[in-house]
């Protein structure tokens, strides 16, 4: 019994964090280290690869035959793509943001598949790892600012950080102050974005493992019924939260892109 080995490390209490860490860093295929980065295949990486293959095959099969009246997988793909177009692009950014449609769709589908695949027993959730969410947030951060600079030019985009309408004599003092404030705000955004997704996914697993841990603590079949029933209920709630988090990530991305395209304030 592998988890029980960790269980007694904290005076009878279950050490949830060390169990989760041990599960996440288990090496399935050992690969060498390159420049201090361990390239071994761990369970989250397996889930990432499976999710990518699933998405690619779904979209390839779904969009292979172009029919006027879609049926089968074509319907699924078309409804996903039209949903992202309506809610994220047209509602949040408008017609000028239509070139961001593929990016936001890819982001939404990728996070959704990774979140949902983590619920299958035996698979790890890649998005409950801070490195994955931080990478996604950095991609969003870079694309937002590159979009802003391309659209308005570097000088005009940076000037947009300072609100217009500061009285003339106050401008030398308040201008730099607002500029630095806005700069901090922009730098903080990817942190908030990554920690939100990571903590939501991580918290779900901690709650599930806490209930399972009750069984390991009491070691009784009679007690085991209640945590299992609660676990099933929380699993159902988790499906909803995982969809919601993918939605939130995509909608915040489109909000930031909309700010960059329309010049913020």
């Amino acid at each position, binding site marked *: 019994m592998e988890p029980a080995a960790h269980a007694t490390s904290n005076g009878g209490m279950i050490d949830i*964090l060390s169990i989760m860490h041990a599960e996440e860093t288990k090496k399935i295929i050992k690969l060498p280290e390159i420049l201090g980065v361990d390239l071994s295949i761990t369970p989250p990486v397996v889930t990432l690869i499976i999710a990518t293959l699933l998405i690619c095959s779904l979209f390839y099969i779904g969009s292979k035959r172009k029919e006027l009246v879609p049926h089968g997988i074509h319907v699924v793909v078309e409804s996903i793509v039209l949903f992202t177009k309506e809610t994220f692009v047209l509602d949040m950014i408008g017609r000028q943001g239509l070139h961001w449609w593929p990016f936001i769709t890819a982001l939404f589908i990728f996070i959704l598949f990774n979140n949902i695949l983590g619920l299958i027993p035996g698979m790890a959730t890649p998005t409950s790892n801070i490195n994955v969410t931080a990478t996604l947030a950095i991609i969003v951060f870079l694309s937002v600012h590159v979009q802003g600079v391309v659209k308005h030019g570097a000088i005009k985009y940076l000037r947009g950080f300072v609100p217009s309408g500061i009285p003339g004599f106050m401008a030398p003092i308040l201008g730099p102050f607002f500029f630095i404030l806005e700069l901090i705000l922009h730098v903080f955004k990817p942190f908030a974005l990554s*920690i*939100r997704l990571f*903590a939501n996914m991580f*918290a779900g697993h901690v709650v599930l493992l806490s209930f399972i841990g009750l069984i390991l603590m009491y070691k009784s079949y009679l007690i085991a019924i209640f945590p299992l029933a609660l676990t099933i209920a929380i699993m159902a709630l988790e499906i909803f939260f995982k969809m919601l988090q993918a939605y*939130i990530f995509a909608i915040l991305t489109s909000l930031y892109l909309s700010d960059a395209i329309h010049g913020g304030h």
Partner: protein
Amino acid sequence: MAGSLAHLGAGIGMGIGALGTGLGIGIAAAKAAEGTARQPEASGMIRTTMLIAAALIEAIALYTLVIAILLMSKP
């Protein structure tokens, strides 16, 4: 001693964080229910707005959770 105090701080901090977040989501849900009762035809839009707001508020509790976990991992 320091480790025990860190564990105590994690618990108290998580409690205070959950208190504020619970109040925030409660207010959001109450206002959404009020809005839906007053204007049932706008219920779809109100629900979407409330869900986004709830997820944003919930994230604050999760920041507290991250801090609590950092404190808990102190020996």
